[in-house]
């Protein structure tokens, strides 16, 4: 096959779309360092907005809450999702089709439907909205992403490896800890990182299942954004964006390296 040379017009088109994706974010980051509250004109470099950001204790608490929820949700979702992906790949069991279907539906269902369905569930169960409702919701919407990430990795593996281990006398738990998990490790770590970014950024579902007692960062950003553009918010969004960006890049590196 001859190597296709990118035509200039194609390259320009790609560049324009990427510009469309990244210019607004770049502008946001640049203006978070602008020494002026409202003007678009450049008034010199400042880190004032970051200073005032870091001295806002309310923000710190919200960020801490988000961090806790993110870490816990990512951990539990990854454990459950990995077990699910391994079971779906390796075992035959009743209701496997249904389970597959549910994971698929969870992925394509609009977030808002998941949000209100969980709100209904928690209300019926008489559960107060706050830490627990948020955690349970976040684990739930993270699970399918772990399943997809881990499953795509395990399905590329040689099925005979598991049979060989079984043949040599390994019990299922040994196979899982000695064979499956080490081989899936890149996918599992990438799953954890992606879950964390999903949880850390989620607005749609958290909006319905969070309570006044437990504020998280994305909802705080949302309520600030509704009031308009502010330099502190520019700074906050820049920090959050860069943080999640790093995690996504890291997780992509992990999945790509060995495939």
């Amino acid at each position, binding site marked *: 096959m001859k190597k296709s040379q990118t035509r200039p017009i194609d390259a320009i088109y790609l560049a324009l779309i990427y510009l469309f994706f990244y210019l607004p974010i770049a502008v946001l980051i640049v203006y978070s360092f602008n020494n002026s509250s409202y003007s678009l004109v450049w008034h010199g470099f400042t880190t004032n907005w970051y200073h005032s950001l870091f001295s806002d204790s309310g923000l710190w608490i919200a960020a801490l809450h988000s961090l806790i929820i993110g870490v816990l949700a990512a951990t539990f979702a990854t454990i459950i999702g990995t077990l699910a992906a*391994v*079971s779906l790949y390796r075992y035959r069991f009743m209701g496997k089709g249904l389970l597959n279907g549910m994971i698929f539906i969870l992925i394509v269902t609009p977030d808002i439907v998941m949000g209100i369905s969980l709100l209904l569930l928690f*209300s019926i169960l008489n559960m107060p909205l706050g830490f627990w409702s948020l955690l349970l919701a976040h684990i739930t919407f993270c*699970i399918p992403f772990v399943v997809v990430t881990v499953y795509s990795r395990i399905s590329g593996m040689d099925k005979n490896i598991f049979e060989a281990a079984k043949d040599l006398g390994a019990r299922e738990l040994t196979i899982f800890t000695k064979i499956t998990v080490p081989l899936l490790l890149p996918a599992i770590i990438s799953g954890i990182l*992606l879950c964390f970014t999903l949880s850390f950024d989620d607005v749609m579902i958290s909006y319905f299942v969070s309570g006044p007692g437990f504020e998280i960062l994305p909802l705080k950003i949302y309520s600030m954004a509704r009031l308009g553009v502010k330099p502190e918010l520019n700074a906050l969004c820049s920090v959050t964006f860069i943080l999640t960006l790093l995690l996504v890049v890291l997780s*992509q590196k992990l999945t790509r390296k060995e495939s």
Partner: protein
Amino acid sequence: MKGDNNFRNFSVAIISTWLGIFALFAFLLVLFASFMQPDSNKIFNFHFTLSNYTTLFSSLYVIVFFKSFYIAGACTLFCILLGYPFAYILARKTSRWKDLLLLLLIIPFWTSSLIRSYAMVAILKTKGVLNNFLIHLGIIHHPLQLLFTNTAVMIGLVYNLLPFMILPLYANLEKFDNRLIEAARDLGAGKVRTFTKVILPLSLPGILAGSILVFLPAMTLFYIPDLLGGAKALLLGNLIENQFLLTHNWPLGSAISVTLTAVMGIMLVAHWLSSKNRSGEDFL
């Protein structure tokens, strides 16, 4: 042997229980609630009724429905028009930059769309970047009112959802066998005919997969119209949000959600039908 099933049973049980409660049961609750009578003091009144669905067909809601469909449809169309050439060029590229380009495409997929929407506000506002830029170029002389218009909502939606169109399209076109194009050209088909008769039909599942990922969120991402469109732009998402958090009419909100899910189901069936004669490729 018997004790050896413990691990399997444990993992199947834990995932089944979790999804059974938080996905299946929760979704069924929505369906159930949509047939109950609303009650502003309780979740709902334990009385079967179809009134929530009949209310949906009253003029106010029908207008919101159509407007939502119209905006989401237009957004999907724009995403196809912008995204198809992009995915096509990227899929056929073989340069060493490809990995980086792909990564740059995946990043918006995982990072906060709220923050990106907020960034759009800064671009579009009256004294924002876009207006200044256009005035500077001399294309316009007075700033345009962009923010709080349907145009702004549309721009925001396309901006947020375009990657969701491009990725499935890219996945589809990437797997495309170049020899088919060569064969078509070899058999005498022109460029246009090769595209309309060979490439386009084979990429239809990709287009549909992308459309599902764009169309549904376009109707429901309530914070985009909220930030960019002000109170004027009311999408299905805002309608559901209002039923649940403002007017406290949960059964009606549930009915809207069920209708939305039904739309999703129809699109999934269409996607399934279009990809069924091809090998079972993954959705994403």
